[in-house]
């Protein structure tokens, strides 16, 4: 069973034709796609940064608004890939029968899923690229180190895309996707060192957060980049993300294959 789930699929460049299809749809509907990443940082920065930040002041010697700016990026990386590869992929798979249409061509089901995952990651990268100018405008992130957020968003996005695809592969219905959204994504949004430092949590929970919660590791790297405060611990975060992404990539592809090839 474990061996089956970790089987390395045979992939070719055809996976990019699936990625390209999704990019084309995204560009076709760009008006609805491009507005949220501009609006979202405004809302967070004003409500939390200025609103709440006025009471909090500083965390250590970092202004509160600068503290949460990288978290806004991390949460956007998480949300854009996760929702793309849960609800988005499920709609394409189940309602649109898009996967059926594609696998009638020389593209294999493994390549379809790989294309979906790459697309989820790309979406995170696009959103991060669009948010960054807003954050720069507010003067809450450092340059040029923050530019590294863009390539990092692809890796972080791929992580959440793979997590999402595992849920999509086992969900009995589109409604059941609400469970991971509310029971996994929402708690992470709050408890991953996003809006308050993780050090205020009991030590056991801190260990749990860095060992198990993907967003905690993503937030820590984002924060290191926007504040130009590099620490060796970021290498642990990066290694965690790479290893977990690699394993979940294989597992999600094989789970989807099991679901779709009957």
């Amino acid at each position: 069973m474990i061996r089956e789930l970790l089987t390395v699929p045979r992939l070719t460049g055809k996976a990019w034709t699936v990625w390209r299809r999704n990019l084309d749809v995204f560009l076709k509907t760009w008006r609805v796609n491009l507005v949220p990443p501009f609006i979202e940082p405004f809302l967070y920065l004003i409500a939390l940064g200025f609103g709440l930040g006025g009471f909090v002041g500083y965390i250590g010697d970092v202004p509160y608004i600068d503290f949460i700016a990288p978290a806004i990026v991390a949460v956007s990386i998480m949300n854009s890939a996760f929702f793309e590869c849960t609800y988005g992929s499920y709609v394409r798979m189940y309602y649109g029968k898009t996967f059926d249409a594609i696998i009638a061509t020389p593209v294999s089901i493994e390549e379809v899923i790989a294309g979906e995952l790459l697309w989820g990651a790309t979406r995170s990268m696009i959103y991060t690229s669009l948010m960054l100018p807003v954050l720069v405008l507010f003067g809450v992130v450092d340059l040029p180190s923050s530019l590294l957020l863009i390539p990092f968003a692809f890796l972080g996005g791929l992580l959440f895309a793979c997590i999402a695809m595992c849920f999509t592969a086992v969900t009995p219905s589109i409604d059941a996707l609400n469970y991971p959204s509310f029971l996994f994504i929402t708690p992470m949004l709050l408890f991953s060192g996003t809006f308050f430092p993780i050090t205020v949590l009991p030590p056991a929970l801190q260990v749990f957060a860095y060992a198990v919660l993907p967003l905690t590791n993503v937030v820590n790297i984002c924060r290191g980049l926007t504040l130009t405060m590099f620490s060796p611990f970021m290498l642990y975060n990066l290694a965690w993300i790479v290893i977990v992404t690699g394993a979940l990539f294989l597992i999600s592809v094989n789970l989807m294959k099991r679901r779709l090839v009957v």
Partner: protein
Amino acid sequence: METVIEAIDLVKQFGPFTAVDTISFAVRPGEVFGFLGPNGAGKTTTMKMIQCASPRTSGTLSVFGMDPGTHSHEIKAMIGVVPQETNLDTEFSTFENLMVYSRYFGIPKEVAEERAEKLLDFVQLTEKRDINIEKLSGGMKRRLILARALVNQPKLLILDEPTIGLDPQARHLIWEKLKLLRSLGNTIVLTTHYLEEAERLCDRLVIMNNGTILVQGSPAALVRDHVGGGIVEAEHSPGVVACLLDMGIPYEVAGDRVQVVTDNPGAVARELLAKCDAKQVLTRAATLEDVFLKLTGRVLRE
């Protein structure tokens, strides 16, 4: 090559359920080969195995001499598939749908554009070239799917219920296109539960029921061998039934009608009118529908 598709003792099981139960058939180059049967007969499952979408449980299957289990990439490059569901990309225009699909086959853009224009012309959708496909009618969508299945210039076309849910005009247009494709030397495999469709289009067909093939042959031969020349129908009244029993003429009840299969319909009709006092007598040639109902029964399939 002697056969395009060859299946020997092909079986497909889903858990304890046997969807396709030891079927054998061969499709020759250039023919239209039909799978006819009620819902749940195993037609679509058979198509899915041929088009490399579903692995077989046992038996042998070869498409262009290759095994779908090991050569799916090569086989899929040579076939065109018209699925039962309409699974076009709803975000794209008619033309864009063909272009995106061409990309999956690795067809260079310029070649794909040229083919897409020709195919739109072929299925009479040139006027709708730049229209979002959500605005197309059901018949237009089916025609676009047919065009999409042709972007890779397939040697074999597989159609699963190609005219399901279409009005007669739209259906005739699809039939016309399929006949044209056949005349160009294409091999076509289709499933249908429309008997008229099978009778008009297929050179040879199999009738499936409960996962097995009941009979195979040309439509005319099947009618001749399994029903005979003509059918006489009359109303199902006690008087008519008693009279038929009295004369020793075998009959079958079909709803509110009785049917007599005979090689001499004229004589039977005269007897019914003269001796049985039948009011509604009708004679007609036997059709594939009679074969179908005789072999698969008159019970409703869900």
